């Protein structure tokens, strides 16, 4: 994507930004996140449909922020994540230049976050077909069959927390599982502890997930953990009619009280 490389070079040479967070070719045919600080290195930046990491993750890490002002290469799921993080006070507009990239490999230079909000509302993103199929299959199962499915999947879990590490919305400085007085969630890999971890994380992401699927992608044991959040997203859409990452309003779906909140669970 030449326009992207040119823009990155321009931003770095003019010192408008000190680092461009994007994608580059890795080893073994993989693509990986890239951090470019020198204009001459901008040539390694690329964008195509294989670019899957959610780069919004790096934008609030102090290790990236200490470099200086950042530009980020942002496919649609990253744009949604940027909005979610902004509503949660994790990102500030002034510290960031957002270079939107589309599936058609076009470059969009967003002048401000309001433009991002407009764009994402005009360009909804859905699940990948194979994820949609898997969810349909899971929903068609009986409760017992679904329980068995997840028991089998979680038996593989080694509690490496790659799912947490790769998720931009897992931004807590100290995760629930890192507390030990009390130890809310088991750290060891056993059946109950594995369920605890994954269900807790799915609940904490309810209403906040940008449907990037990176948690499932990152899992070294190939557990489709992203399906948990995808399903909750669908449930939330049915119940509340909303999806995450489409607004700049500093409100949280599940944590902001409204007088017209549905309370039909109180009997």
């Amino acid at each position, binding site marked *: 994507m030449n326009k992207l490389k040119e823009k990155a070079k321009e931003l770095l040479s003019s010192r408008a930004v000190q680092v461009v967070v994007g994608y580059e070719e890795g080893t073994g045919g993989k693509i*990986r996140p890239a951090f470019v600080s020198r204009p001459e290195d901008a040539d390694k930046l690329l964008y195509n449909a294989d670019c899957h990491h959610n780069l919004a993750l790096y934008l609030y890490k102090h290790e990236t922020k200490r470099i200086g002002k950042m530009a980020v290469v942002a496919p649609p799921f990253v744009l949604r994540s940027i909005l979610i993080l902004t509503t949660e006070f994790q990102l500030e507009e002034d510290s960031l230049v957002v270079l939107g990239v589309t599936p058609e490999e076009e470059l969009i230079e967003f002048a401000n976050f309001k433009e991002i909000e407009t764009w994402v509302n005009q360009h909804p993103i859905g699940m990948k077909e194979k994820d949609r199929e898997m969810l349909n299959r899971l929903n068609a199962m009986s409760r017992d069959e679904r329980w068995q499915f997840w028991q089998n999947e979680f038996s593989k879990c080694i509690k490496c927390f790659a799912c947490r590490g790769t998720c931009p919305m897992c931004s807590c400085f100290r995760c629930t599982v890192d507390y030990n007085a009390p130890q809310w969630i088991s750290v*060891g890999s056993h059946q109950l502890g594995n369920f605890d971890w994954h269900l807790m994380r799915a609940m904490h992401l309810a209403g906040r997930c940008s449907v990037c699927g990176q948690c499932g992608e990152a899992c070294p044991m190939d557990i489709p953990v992203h399906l948990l959040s995808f399903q909750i997203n669908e449930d939330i859409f049915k119940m509340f009619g909303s999806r995450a990452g489409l607004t700049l309003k500093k409100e949280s779906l599940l944590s902001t009280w409204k007088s017209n909140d549905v309370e039909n669970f109180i009997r």
Partner: protein
Amino acid sequence: MKLIKKEDLPGLYGYLASAGKKIFAPVRKNGMVSFSFTSAFEEIEMSYIQTKLSAKAAAFPKIEKLMKYTIQKEGQSYEPYDVEKFPGIVVWGAHPCDAAAFHPLNAVFTWETHDKYFTRRLENLLIIGLSCTSHDEFCFCTSVGVHPGDTKGSDIQLTPLPGGDYLAEIITTKGEAVAAAVPALFSPAPGLNKEELVTSVEKRFDHEALHAKINGMFDHPVWKEQALRCIGCGACTYVCPICSCFDIQDEGGIFGGLRYRCWDSCGFGHFTIHTSGHNPRESQDTRWRQRLMHKFSYQPQRQEVFGCVGCGRCSRNCPVDMNISEHLTQIMAV
């Protein structure tokens, strides 16, 4: 040098199983090959490049019960799990990297304290190694002092022959005891050059030179550069055959529970956090530096072992392609 015919290999499995051993071998399940306790020879996959998880769980399980405790009015009681009850395990079909890895792993668990749980499991372990006839781009054993036909750590080493038979080298007294128990399975080997049967892994760097260089690099800016994309998970640590950090947890209720140890990772943000709140490794680059210096500087200095066997699992499984041999090559070049 002996020969085991293809049709005799199940007999070796059968003998070990009937001797009460639990056989930990590469099994294909859920689309990946990983070490699993097996109940039949047919479950084993002998031709694999690398398993998902290493074989270290045979001596250092991902979760291990240490003791039960009860809390009563009269006081507390503790019941340690009896290490004498640990079954004998056979690690079947470990590539040279995995077999060699038990030595540096043992160095950690016997360094100052003799860890009875680990050492007892290791004493009861029999390792049947499997030379490598192929490799992929993530393998780099020859850069860290191991090679595809290496017998370090194996009690019996098998090398696949083109027809399906195996060369068998009996390495240790444990291996000799097995061969003596089922002599019919072992026939004299034809004069074959093992070098020609195993794959060849190109050396990327010299491990002694790496150790000498990395010793002086604590304050080098390269760590900040390399660690930018690291997400601080434990994937590399947990798939590694040598990483040995663990956490100890008590889980139970008011009147008692269970103490266990489980894998931990120095990559996690809070691995080194103090009770005071101070964290000596507050940024990911200090944690990345720790990983590499522990393996290539501190362990060689303190324990006289190398903390890496070049199996490549960390690099294959890292969600952001922290390819260790690429990083090490870069370190040699700066």
